[in-house]
């Protein structure tokens, strides 16, 4: 699928800004990880930004999002503040999960961001349930569920696609196919590597699209989201992408070739969009400089908040094991 619509300048710049924000934010996270400000598992989205940015364009504020442990980008683009995300990774109480979740468990009720789930496939049933609740309550909403290619092998994937299709639930299944589950290449763990084909087993409409071109992603997502909204049934979207960095900060990255990585870097979604906009005369060097400045300031401000943030008193350790107060 290739892009057919022309992008107007305002929207084009916004797409670029969002991808730059995610990219620069995570580049900073790497520094902060080395500086031991951030700990635990940290999974970078660098190279895959077009997927979250493109798909989120198709969602409204009422829609819901379920993501994985590789979700910094999804949270940022969804509108969770960079400051609350950074504070979370610092383990500060100002964090979007009060420092209890960390990088893999960003949550934000305000934007219906139902988390960062670190069990592969674990978010899919939750997404199906959110869509079920919305449907039962007669709320016309979409739940976008992001997961990786590796999650397709889990039994829950199969159970959830069937359940969503059987009950005509408004779930947009977004498979971020970066061709690896940790160090295992797709063809080494799936007998059928055309992931969009899987949806046919559930009578679910599916599309595959180039996940390195944000304009293409947005177009595919708009079509799929419209299908979910108006068709009142789930859809499956496979976005072919690639992670430029290792799986996590612990990964020696020994299972793929430098050439392969280089090949994909040539499709870096940020220059891809930049070139497209320049070619259409919609982007200048000043624009880029301006966006970089804007993004850098947002990130610096976020770090300042995180640095200035406070550690939750250990006396509060046992809080929130159970919900405090009345049911909402």
């Amino acid at each position: 699928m290739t892009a057919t619509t022309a992008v107007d300048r305002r929207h084009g710049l916004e797409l670029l800004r969002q991808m730059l924000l995610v990219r620069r934010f995570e580049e900073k996270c790497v520094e902060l990880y080395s500086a031991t400000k951030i700990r635990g598992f940290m999974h970078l989205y660098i190279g895959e930004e077009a997927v979250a940015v493109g798909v989120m364009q198709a969602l409204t504020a009422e829609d819901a999002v379920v993501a994985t442990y590789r979700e910094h980008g999804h949270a940022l683009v969804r509108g969770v503040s960079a400051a609350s995300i950074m504070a979370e990774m610092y383990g500060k109480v100002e964090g979007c999960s009060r420092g209890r979740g960390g990088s893999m468990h960003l949550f934000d009720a305000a934007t219906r961001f139902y988390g960062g789930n670190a069990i592969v496939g674990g978010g899919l049933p939750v997404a199906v349930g959110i869509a079920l609740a919305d449907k039962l309550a007669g709320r016309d909403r979409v739940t976008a569920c992001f997961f990786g290619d590796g999650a397709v092998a889990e039994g829950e994937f199969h159970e959830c696609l069937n359940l969503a299709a059987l009950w005509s639930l408004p779930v947009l299944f977004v498979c971020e196919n970066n061709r690896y589950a940790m160090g295992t290449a797709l063809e080494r763990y799936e007998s059928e590597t055309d992931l969009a084909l899987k949806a046919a087993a559930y009578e679910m409409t599916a599309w595959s699209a180039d996940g390195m071109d944000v304009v293409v992603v947005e177009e595919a997502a708009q079509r799929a989201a419209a299908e979910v909204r108006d068709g009142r049934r789930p859809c499956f979207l496979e976005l072919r992408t690639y992670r430029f960095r290792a799986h996590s900060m612990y990964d020696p990255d020994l299972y793929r070739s430098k050439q392969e990585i280089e090949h994909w870097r040539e499709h870096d979604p940020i220059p891809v969009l930049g070139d497209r906009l320049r070619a259409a005369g919609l982007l200048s060097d000043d624009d880029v400089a301006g966006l970089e400045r804007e993004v850098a300031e947002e990130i610096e401000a976020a770090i300042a908040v995180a640095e200035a943030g406070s550690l939750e008193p250990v006396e509060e350790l046992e809080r929130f094991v159970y919900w405090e107060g009345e049911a909402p």
Partner: protein
Amino acid sequence: MSVAPAATITYREAMRDAIRHALLADERVFLMGEDVGAYGGCFGVSRGLLAEFGPERIRDTPLSESAFVGAGIGAAMAGARPIVEVMTVNFCLLALDQIMNNAATITHMSGGQFAIPLVIRMTTGAGRQVAAQHSHSLEGWLAHIPGLKLLAPATLADARGMLAPALADPNPVLIFEHGSLYNLEGELSEAAEAVDIERAAVRRAGADVTLVAYGGTVPTALAAAETLAGEGVEAEVIDLRVLRPLDDRTVIESVVRTHRAVVVDEGWRSGSLAAEVSARIMEQAFYELDAPVARVCTAEVPLPYAHHMEQAALPQPEAVVAAVRRMTGEPER
């Protein structure tokens, strides 16, 4: 208990009543699970509900335990009040990742942003010769998991009264219905009163020994108490009712009076809830004990099919009586 007119009812009917009332009281409530609809529930609990409430609120699910239990979690987070039926506790193993890593965890992991007002019902227990894979009693074991609440109704009043407060609770509540109790019959007031879901209950008062039981072993403990009474030993029988958070205060107060305790548990002995009860008595009432706390549990074997072997594996009143006799025979220190 109540002054409203009383009618004869079974444990099964009491559960059905409770579900009906919940569906009538709150339109956010729905029931989903395998064969809860057209079949009427594997144990007949939901018979008639599909006809009364329709397929949107009484949802037959595919054989996909992880997906529909997880869907219950998501639905609860998004404002619904799901009652998820896992046909039997044996099958909840397939959904345990969702239960432990999502239901029990998300409220805390999100810094208190999401409540999970979910109820999961399961039939539990052995005794019907359905062999190893279908005879698990895992509720005591599952009580290990922080973030969950676990209930084990052992009476008609609890069968009918526990669901409403469980649904009102903003946390995931698991309700375990022991298969041997469904045909339990008795009088129950017409008014479906809610009961507390915090405290254990003294089912029989006695000064000589404390018998701690829950779910399917409550009748076992009461039967043992009868026998003991005939021998002049007055046993106090405590029904834990709530397996997590455990109401140890009621247990300790009893042991402080009786100075002896036997815990009766249908779970396998090692790592049973009975071990936890024994450890808490050790920690909180050691100097009150005239004898070591004893456990009568299920033998540590996969449950065999043959009737005599299965019965030999399960905690029997005779074994409880024998444990008490050994204890009261024990020389004081």
